[in-house]
């Protein structure tokens, strides 16, 4: 942690020192944001931050292995991240099970839909304060410190991934702060990834049920299971026509 230096005789920090360190702190605080914005978040040198260098985290979901009556992924996310959906249209839903029926043939299918962690996220483009942002490892997040709750990102998301917190929140999980008046969405269990768990709650739960419909990994790492899977088997993006290059890919829709 960067600490402004104390005076050698142990006296209290003077106001001048605070101002000097405050200016330094402000610059260090703003500089990453400016850099991110100016350079579009290109990969930094390894070790500059806490992220795995040149990573792109993503999911691969096989709809054929996803039973219609299973929502383990939804329950797991709900427990891990501390949100609840009781059926009200104001309740949040970070991940949802969607049931499909092909109009021309009548074939049915089911799969989970969550934030697709686009490479060119419309939500990031439209956020006036930059609260909706993309981390260098591809995870799209809402920085709730900066979110003013304008909901423009919710208008812009092609996948209806975002929810607005409509009531005061208590009893949050300590790893997932959530509060009234901000917008939230699947953050790819960023707290789990950053502490090295190597997976997300939904994928863990899906694997535990034995369905193995979901896979998590680093799309940019040619040795990872997910990279090998997407380079071998056909997979598609939702709304591929929008050209957003999503981090979540689906098979057998």
């Amino acid at each position, binding site marked *: 942690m960067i600490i402004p230096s104390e005076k050698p005789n142990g006296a209290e920090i003077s106001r001048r020192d605070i101002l000097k360190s405050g200016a330094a702190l402000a610059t260090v605080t703003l500089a990453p944001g400016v850099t991110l914005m100016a350079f579009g978040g290109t990969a930094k040198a390894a070790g500059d931050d806490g992220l795995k260098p040149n990573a792109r985290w993503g999911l691969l979901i096989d709809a054929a292995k996803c039973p219609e009556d299973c929502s383990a992924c939804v329950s797991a996310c709900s427990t891990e991240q501390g949100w609840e959906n009781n059926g009200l249209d104001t309740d949040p839903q970070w991940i949802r099970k*969607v049931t499909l029926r092909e109009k021309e043939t009548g074939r049915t299918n089911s799969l989970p839909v969550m934030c697709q962690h686009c490479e060119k996220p419309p939500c990031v483009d439209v956020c006036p304060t930059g609260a909706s942002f993309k981390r260098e490892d591809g995870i799209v997040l809402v920085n709730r410190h900066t979110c003013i709750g304008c909901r423009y990102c919710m208008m812009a998301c092609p*996948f209806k991934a*975002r929810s607005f917190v409509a009531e005061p929140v208590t009893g949050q999980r300590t790893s997932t702060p959530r509060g009234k008046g901000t917008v939230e969405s699947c953050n790819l269990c960023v707290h789990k990834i950053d502490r090295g768990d190597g997976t997300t709650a939904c994928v863990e739960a899906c694997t535990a049920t034995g369905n193995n419909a979901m896979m998590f990994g680093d799309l940019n790492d040619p040795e990872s299971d997910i990279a090998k899977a997407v380079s071998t088997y056909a997979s598609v993006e939702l*709304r591929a026509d929008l050209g957003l290059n999503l981090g979540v890919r689906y098979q057998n829709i």
Partner: protein
Amino acid sequence: MERIVYRELRSTPKVWGFMALCAAFVGAAGIEVYYVEKYGSIVTGLNNQIVWGVPHVFAIFLIIAASGALNVSSIGSVFGKMAYKPVARLANLLAISLLMGGLAVLVLDLGRPDRLIMAMYTYNFTSIFAWNILLYSGFMGVVAVYLYTLMARGVDPRALKAASLLAFVWRLALTTGTGSIFGWLVARTAYDSAIMAPMFIAMSFSFGMAMFMLVMILTTSLTRRVYSPELRTRQARLLGVFVAAVLYFVIVHHLSNIYLAKKTAYESWILLNGGIYTWLFWGGQILIGSILPMILLFHPRIDTKKGYVLLAALLVVIGGFAQLYVIIVGGQAFPLDIFPGFEVSSSFSDGVINEYTPSLGEFFLGLGGIALALMIAGLGMKFLRIVPDNLSDDNVDPAALAD
């Protein structure tokens, strides 16, 4: 022809009564804001499917009307139409006050308006919303400078010309930005169209002129000043043209959508079986907001029909609200087409028309914005020399009368 005399409003009981009425509405809006800040937006009709509701309809109407109100003075200063010059000051004041009212509603509708200042230094310049915030604030400054050039003595006519031209271009940018808030959203079938920006420009001409005329009629009747029938007739005819322009853009927008196969589902819903949205489109936007006003405004003897002008302006405003409700709320009600070719269902309202029941408080917030705009305009008229005192037909430019 006399020189136009501008005089402050006198504090008659009528004026005070009107301001008190506005203050009551502003107070009601304040109560609603307090309530929402304390308990969260769960107390309003908003949900995760319809995130911009009635307050945004009011806010965007006021912002568009503000840009159009400025147009009235631009017609005089930029396009040189003498008949409009006497009302230029009022038009500028109205532009500023309508914008303030609209922004107040917009800001108070945020989930965390207390963060607005803090968020100002983490600006995201790729966001058209962020650009709009700059355009709106700049607009107030530019129009204030323009108003100064109109009102101050000894101002170089070139300065006035420059200020008026800057204000005119600025307002076009602002309205284009407002339309692009919707037009640049690829996600939703109802938006995602370059035509939204020019359509909003046409709407600004129409709503701005209508709001200006309503405020002019209201002010002159409350203060017993004259609203020149010649000017009123010219504005009425022009309003008719603007309404026709809006109708043109609406027709082009919907015809183009009908032609695009992936948008036909949306069009058939909104035009035929969208329930409230279909009623508001055909009844509110087209009939009340376009056809009836045009019939009234293009009446051959409109110069004698003061009542027709008032009615037409009111209908345009009502139609404008209907149009914005259809655009803003209707556009969100139609489900996102995430899986083309599939019927979709989920626990998060996928594949179904999204429901929205606005709460009464949301209407109070919106009406409070209009009331705030009128209060600010009223205060400006009371303390500054804005409203002409002798705007009779004799004092409209005789050369223009000869046209």
